[in-house]
């Protein structure tokens, strides 16, 4: 285990591509948060400022950050596709790793990326909450359950990225296929093939894990208001949270398993 982590650390943290994309993720996230914080809207009991205060800040930041999970998945796709591009997965096999170890190494990268996302949202939420200071701090400071959900969501997204990268073995093709699947692809599949089970399909289920903040919908007059904005609603979950979390965990394992299977089945050119 330690050996694989050391190997992944050498190749990942020295990669300019990785460093640039992670920086881009960080900057985009902070920029979006900053821009929203500059909006001065108060409608009835709703105010934008409240989104930056405890306890809503965790829900809000996790929801904003969930949109950037696609970028984290793209980082994983680039890292894995590069292994095929450089011929290094093949070389690792020749040098004495087996297919399980190749996948295990990448799973560790998935965890590193998800931990980064978790820490980013945790730290920025806490700083925002402490600066904007409201509510009862000692009770609300550690109400971070949603961040663990966000962590699982990130893992599920990046594992899907891993699967696409191993399927297509090419940066551009994997990224385009991944994005096409997430947006029109699964929507079409859901509507045409599984209209009754659409909430169980991976992209929908994983994105629904961090819903639009409850505070907004409640303060703007009920769930429908936010629902009209086409955001998944926390107040009207189609699946229980336990089922959603279980299914997301299942998809994480499934994508890892499929990645291993595809890698094992196909030769290296």
């Amino acid at each position, binding site marked *: 285990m330690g050996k694989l982590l050391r190997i992944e650390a*050498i190749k990942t943290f*020295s990669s*300019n591509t990785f460093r640039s994309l992670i920086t881009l993720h960080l900057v985009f996230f902070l920029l979006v948060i900053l821009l929203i914080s500059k909006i001065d809207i108060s409608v009835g009991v709703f105010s934008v400022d409240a989104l930056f205060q405890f306890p809503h800040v965790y829900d809000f930041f996790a929801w904003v950050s969930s949109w950037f999970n696609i970028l984290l998945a793209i980082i994983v796709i680039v890292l894995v596709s590069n292994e095929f591009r450089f*011929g*290094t997965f093949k070389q690792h096999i020749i040098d*004495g*790793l087996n297919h399980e170890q190749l996948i295990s190494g990448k799973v560790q990268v998935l965890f590193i990326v998800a931990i980064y996302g978790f820490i980013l949202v945790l730290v920025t939420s806490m700083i925002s909450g402490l600066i904007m200071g409201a509510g009862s701090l000692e009770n609300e400071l550690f109400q971070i359950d949603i961040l663990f959900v966000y962590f699982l969501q990130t893992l599920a997204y990046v594992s899907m990225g891993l699967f696409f990268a191993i399927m297509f073995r090419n940066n551009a093709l994997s990224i385009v296929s991944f994005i096409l699947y997430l947006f029109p692809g699964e929507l079409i599949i859901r509507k045409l093939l599984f209209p009754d089970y659409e909430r169980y399909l991976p992209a929908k289920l994983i994105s629904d894990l961090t819903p639009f903040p409850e505070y907004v919908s409640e303060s703007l007059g009920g769930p429908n208001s936010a629902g009209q904005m086409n955001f998944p609603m926390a107040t009207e979950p189609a699946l229980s949270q336990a089922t959603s979390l279980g299914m997301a965990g299942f998809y994480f394992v499934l994508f890892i398993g499929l990645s291993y299977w595809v890698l094992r089945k196909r*030769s290296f050119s």
Partner: protein
Amino acid sequence: MSEESILKIQNLSKKYGNLRALNNLNLNVNRGNVYGLLGPNGSGKTTTLSIALGTLNQSAGEYFWFGEEPGSKSRLRIGSLIESPNFYPYLTLSDNLRIVANIKNVPFSDINRVLGITSLLKRKYSRFRHLSSGLKQRLALASALLGNPEVLVLDEPTKSLDPEGFSDLREIINQQHKEGKTIILASHILDEVEKVCTHVGILKAGELVREGRVDEILKKVNLIYVDTPNPDGLVRVLSSSDMVKEYKQDKDGFQIVLNDDYTASDLNKYLFDNNIVLNRLESKKNTLEKEFLELIK
């Protein structure tokens, strides 16, 4: 005492659609052999080595390393260079070798040793992408030598090497052979193979057409070139001799193949006794290149 088999390949086949890249290939490499795998482009050399090193799945057949089922454990005992050097272009030579050292459970102190052997020590902190193709090939060789493996598998190791690199590689192979290592070498450079290999296997269209010791293969043809002012007399004498296997005349004289028990001096004496005066008598050793070209015709 029976020799220890290092790599044993049995009935190995590989098909790409309708194309048969390997057809029931059988070969055996024993400990201490320097085994040259020869063959024209597309004969199946790289396919054979890729299957043996686990990067390509075979269609049929099996192979064994060290007498056991192949796996990552056996590959840890092998240093390999297959086709092109595969490294992270943005990493330094040192970091690339640290990755390999981690995989092979080799201490990092061995990195300097192999960089020294391949004359890359000064470039230790250069990035891989900044190396010339010859230096990249040297790095691949350094990587293969990391951990002092029992077996070296080198596929076209001289690719992109300059004459100095050629010479260094020959020295490395000879040194490794002296240390009792087993080396499997696939190459097009027949002269190099002849100089360093103890055994060869010649592949043609995915089949092994000849396998054996290099010296035995080269001994097989006993070739003499002669020239005489009396060609008709020479033809008459050669036709009646049992020491001559075959002969042919070309613009430079006669090319004579003797039966195994006879030498050039036997022929010289025989012709002298039969009043044939020679302008030239030249004994030519068979070359691997000649044998190879004959076999793949």
